[in-house]
């Protein structure tokens, strides 16, 4: 009897401890919902990423830049994203000034008074770094991107491999956000490259079509008009991922695969698939890791030293159906490495 009583006391004691433990656990779980900011990681700086373009390429660039910021103890925020209002880059810069951000990484969208906004930011002590599109006559402290000389040469080289005998119609899709000077430079370099390298009997007529990527559905409409127009180009050159995806879809929709060669820009899942299916011969891509890393480094350097290199070059490379599989493998490895590191 006495053993039974002791056994019962032990069992009940154990159960009691268990129940009290569970009780405390649930209670703490409830309390944690109201936890303050004490346990959160703090950051030494607050940078804003300014881009009205929310395409896959910019999203990737933002991700890479955010990773670089995280590594250097900086909180990166995409200005105006997820807010009900739609802001131009210029407005975002004003917004960032009002937010008293420590620095800005801006993807210029060709909006008015962008240089003025950059100047205002600079006047408030907020350095601005532009990426992919430069505004050389502004107060931006540095530009991180590709050189249009290089881009022109690279595109020219790709064109040479795609030209057939006789006259070739080539259409270059420009973006409303691209500055005229930059576009002109690109155009010139491409023409020069063809002139220098084209074999006899192969000529090229290059024209440009402007696409306003800030306006909804504009890219798809322009590309459809180009492909179904009287002067259908033999080669279509895209300068961003949205244009490339629209062009690929149009090739499929209007059964133009093989008739129109599309030189794409950037690598998305759809573009990569098109490459592997050989719907397009080549796509140009940038090193987003380097872009993110360099832009953050430029801001950090300026804030710490008060000066920084005005230009960080990012390499542009072409991916063909042959190299697509290798590229995909490398990306997968990079993603898995990132997850393990995370």
């Amino acid at each position, binding site marked *: 009897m006495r053993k039974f009583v002791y056994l019962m006391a032990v069992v*009940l004691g154990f159960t009691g401890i268990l129940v009290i433990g569970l009780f405390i656990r649930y209670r703490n779980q409830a309390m944690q919902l109201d936890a303050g900011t004490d346990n959160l990681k703090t950051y030494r700086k607050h940078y804003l990423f300014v881009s009205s373009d929310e395409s896959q390429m910019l999203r990737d660039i933002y991700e890479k830049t955010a990773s670089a910021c995280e590594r250097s103890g900086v909180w990166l925020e995409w200005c*105006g994203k997820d807010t009900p209002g739609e802001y131009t880059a210029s407005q975002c810069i004003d917004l960032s000034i009002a937010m008293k951000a420590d620095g800005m990484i801006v993807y210029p969208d060709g909006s008015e008074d962008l240089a003025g906004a950059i100047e205002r930011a600079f006047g408030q002590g907020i350095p601005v770094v532009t990426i992919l599109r430069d505004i050389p006559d502004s107060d931006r402290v540095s530009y991180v991107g590709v050189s249009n000389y290089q881009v022109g040469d690279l595109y020219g080289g790709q064109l040479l491999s795609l030209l057939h005998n006789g006259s070739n119609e080539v259409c270059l899709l420009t973006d409303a956000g691209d500055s005229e000077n930059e576009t002109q430079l690109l155009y010139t370099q491409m023409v020069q490259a063809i002139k220098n390298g084209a074999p006899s009997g192969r000529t090229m007529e290059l024209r440009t079509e402007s696409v306003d990527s800030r306006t909804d559905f504009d890219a798809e409409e322009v590309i459809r008009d180009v492909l179904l127009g009287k002067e259908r180009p033999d080669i279509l050159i895209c300068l961003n991922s949205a244009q490339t995806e629209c062009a690929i879809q149009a090739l499929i929709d209007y059964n133009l695969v093989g008739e129109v060669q599309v030189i794409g820009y950037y690598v998305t899942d759809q573009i990569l698939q098109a490459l592997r299916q050989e719907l397009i011969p080549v796509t140009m891509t940038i090193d987003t890791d380097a872009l993110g890393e360099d832009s953050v480094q430029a801001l950090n350097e300026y804030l710490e030293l008060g000066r920084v290199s005005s230009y960080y070059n990012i390499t542009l490379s072409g991916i063909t159906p042959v190299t697509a599989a290798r590229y995909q493998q490398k990306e997968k490895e990079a993603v898995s490495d990132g997850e393990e590191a995370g």
Partner: protein
Amino acid sequence: MKKNQIRFFASVQTRITAVIAIVLLLVLSANVVAFRVSSETVQQINQVFASNAVIVNLADTLQTAQGSMYEYLSTKSSSSLENFYRYEQELRDQTDGLNDRNVGNELLMLEKNIRSMTQSYLTVSEDAIQARRGRNVEEYKASFARASELFGYINDYIYTLNSRRFAQNTENYLSLLRSMRAVERMSLLMILVISAFALTICAVSVRAMIGPLGKLSEAAERVAGGDFSVDVPKSRQADEVGVVTNAFHKMLGSIRTYIESQRASLEKEAQMKENELSMEAHLKEAQLKFLQAQINPHFLFNSLNAGSQLAMMEGADRTELFLSRMAQFFRYNVKKTGGDAALSEEIASVDNYIYILNVRFSGDIHYEKQIDETVDLEQMRMPSMILQPIVENAIQHGIHDDHENGIVTLAVDPVPENENESGTDCVRITVSDNGTGMTRKQIEAIMDRSGIEAHSPDEEEKDSTGIAMENVISRLELYYNRKNLFSIWSDGPGTGTEVTVLLPKEPDTVRKNGSEGRSGSDYGTGIRPDLVRNKLSSTEEKDYVSDSDSRR
């Protein structure tokens, strides 16, 4: 009385009260904890959407401030200016509660942005107000435009923060509801478990307190049934039950001691009866032997008297003396058998015995007496028939083979109490001879009362001598109720033998075993005088009647 008082904290009443108090406290604590946690959770649920209310208030205040500024810029009224400043202050107060650090939480960073933008907005608004007061139209219009732009941004961010807070709070609300349900179930379970635990504690404690009572009642029942072998261990409890248990334990011990003493008393009485029977048996045995050895001693004793008278008439003095001494010897034997006698009578009997033997052996027996004059031979009482058997042994076994050179010495001297083991004043009687001596084994055989086989290999002699010595020793011990009164000393064969008898002088020693006033015949037997007299009456009465009988 004070010693038996139970301490307050040890009493059963206090302990039961304490156990109940602990049990109640446990259950009450469980209830209080459960109630408190439930209350806190409910409070948390009520607070879940408080952050949304703060944000909405902030938006309202901002809206009002913007309206006041617009009104002032439009009308320049002092009331609108006053309102603006009031709402400006409210805005500052409200934004002071928002996060202002760079932390890894998007909502908190939204708060930081709103706080910073609001401060910027207020600065620009202030510029607009000041410009309006200074009638700087361009500047106040530009500042108002700028303020309105910021107002729009802030509203967008407030809306975003509010939406995301609401989504998060809704999630928290659902999570809290789940937690609250879990906490409710856990509380119920905890109360049940603690109640069961408390009941167990109660049961164990009460059992520990009352349990010994059950054992005590069981033991009491067995004692009531006459079983005193029941074991009731002493209790360490200091409460009432412990006191009762210890008292019972003590009582049981007393009863056992009483029973033991009664048993010892009965055993002693039985031992006394056994002694009585043993003495009787010794006497009867001696008498039987004597009677077997002697044919009609009364006739012989009377005949010896007749022969003595005849010799006297015929003028044969030596014959008359011999017959007279023989008659004295046998008379003494018949008269004193089974009783006590004066030491002088014992010595006289030995003298007669020696005289008779010397007549028999033509004066060959050399006998010496060394009597200390300080010893009062008349007053010194002792059992009868003690010295003659010892002297007889000395002659028959000690100097039997060499009467010419052999000598038997009887010495009587006092021994003070400090010179002997008995611790009382004694008279020492020593019968020694220079005869064949005794081996250690023979001495031990006699002292162990197993006979004197070694001293007397002859079967017939062994019987009589062994019985005689055993009889002598036993009677001495019974008479004086002591041991170590008889001892034999010999250095071995050919060295002679010395037998020593110690007679304690204290008359009380004898009386301790019987009662004062008893006749000499029953001293030392431990037998009631009337019984002894009855048992021996036939023989003694005959002796006294005839007065001429002789027995050995």
